[in-house]
């Protein structure tokens, strides 16, 4: 086993240093899609956290027995199973949210962060470290989405979590409701981050 960084560092790497959205620019599709309402964002985040952690854990547990040539099939199968479980659970216990999110829950399967973590980390590392890596990465994703939703929902709807935060006469920025609004918000965030913390040569790759 190559020397593994301490768990705390693995966690912080995913959460901030190597943030999947801001640094790796992964999972953009869902970032654009769900962040115009905070409620949808939060449910999406929980679904993703569960799926990434459990998929990484499972892939890691099976890493020594899974034949290398079919590992991607196995990973897809594992990810899809967890996502369908999340979908069923939301339908059973949160029917209203399930209606609002519609097809997006099932689309968690195609979120590249999940398979990315399975391939890049979980298949070569022990279960606990993989779980923490998944947790860090998915929380990193969640934080960015919450930050974007925190800008988009008030500007687009004048509300936050459904409560009105801006005065009634506020002219809503329709562009913020639509996907381009997320593009602008995300772009500005990445820009600010790059300005204040340029990537070192070593990190570039």
């Amino acid at each position, binding site marked *: 086993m190559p020397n593994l960084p301490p768990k705390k560092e693995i966690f912080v790497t995913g959460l901030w240093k190597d943030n999947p959205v801001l640094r790796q620019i992964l999972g953009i599709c869902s970032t654009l*899609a769900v962040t115009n309402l905070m409620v949808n964002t939060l449910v999406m985040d929980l679904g993703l956290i569960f799926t990434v952690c459990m998929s990484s854990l499972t892939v890691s547990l099976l890493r020594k027995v899974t034949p290398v040539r*079919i590992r991607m099939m196995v990973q897809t199968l594992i990810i899809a*199973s967890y996502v*369908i*479980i999340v979908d069923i659970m939301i*339908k*059973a216990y949160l*029917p209203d949210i399930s209606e609002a999110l519609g097809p997006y829950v099932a689309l968690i399967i195609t979120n590249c962060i999940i398979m990315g973590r399975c391939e890049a980390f979980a298949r070569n590392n022990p279960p606990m470290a993989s779980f923490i890596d998944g947790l860090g990465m998915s929380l990193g994703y969640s934080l960015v989405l919450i930050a974007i939703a925190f800008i988009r929902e008030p500007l687009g709807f004048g509300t936050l979590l459904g409560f009105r935060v801006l005065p009634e006469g506020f002219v809503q920025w329709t562009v913020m409701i639509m996907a381009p609004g997320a593009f602008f918000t995300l772009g500005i965030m990445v820009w600010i981050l790059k300005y204040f913390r340029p990537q070192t040569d070593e990190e570039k790759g």
Partner: protein
Amino acid sequence: MKKQVLSVIYMFLITLFFASLVSAVKLMNDKRIERNQTIKLQQIILRVLQIPTQEQITEEYLSRLFANRVKEIDVDDRTLYIGYKEDGQAIQGYALPVGGPGFWGPIQGMVGITPDATRVLGIAFTQHSETPGLGGRITESWFTEQFQNLPLFPIEGDKNIFYLKPVGTAQAANDLDAITGATNTSSAVEVFLNRELDYFLKELWGSIEGTK
């Protein structure tokens, strides 16, 4: 060769395991999901018929109220719901399931119509795959409440029952607010709902009158 056989067996076993896991979770929650859907449908029918419900509704209360006040009838391959007033005799209105293509996928809804078929009692959208926060806002109350008391008449020529106009430009009584940023969903709703209401007035209404 042996490696490939092993891979196939491994894939088979792991698929079997995960498929069973998913099936088990589905089976365990199937009843609950189905019940959620029934409750949802009953609530929507009662709502579009303007039959008031208690603040706190239990499942039992809902199914009893539904059984007392709503009757299902089949007219021309469609299932309609007749809502009765509290005395159980006089008709409160008809609930008509409507549907048509949305922007991303089919949209389904329910329209409540007065007993003389001249006005809309209420409307609700039950299923859609429109973008959450954009076209998905057709389910929000500010949108659906605009339809209450909308006058109904059979369409002749190109005069629609109602129009969806950009917010702030509505002039006539049957100009309703469209959803900002969801032009395609709004026009899809305008097209199929006008068609469905017209169909109700021209085809179904005669049959309902006939059964009385």
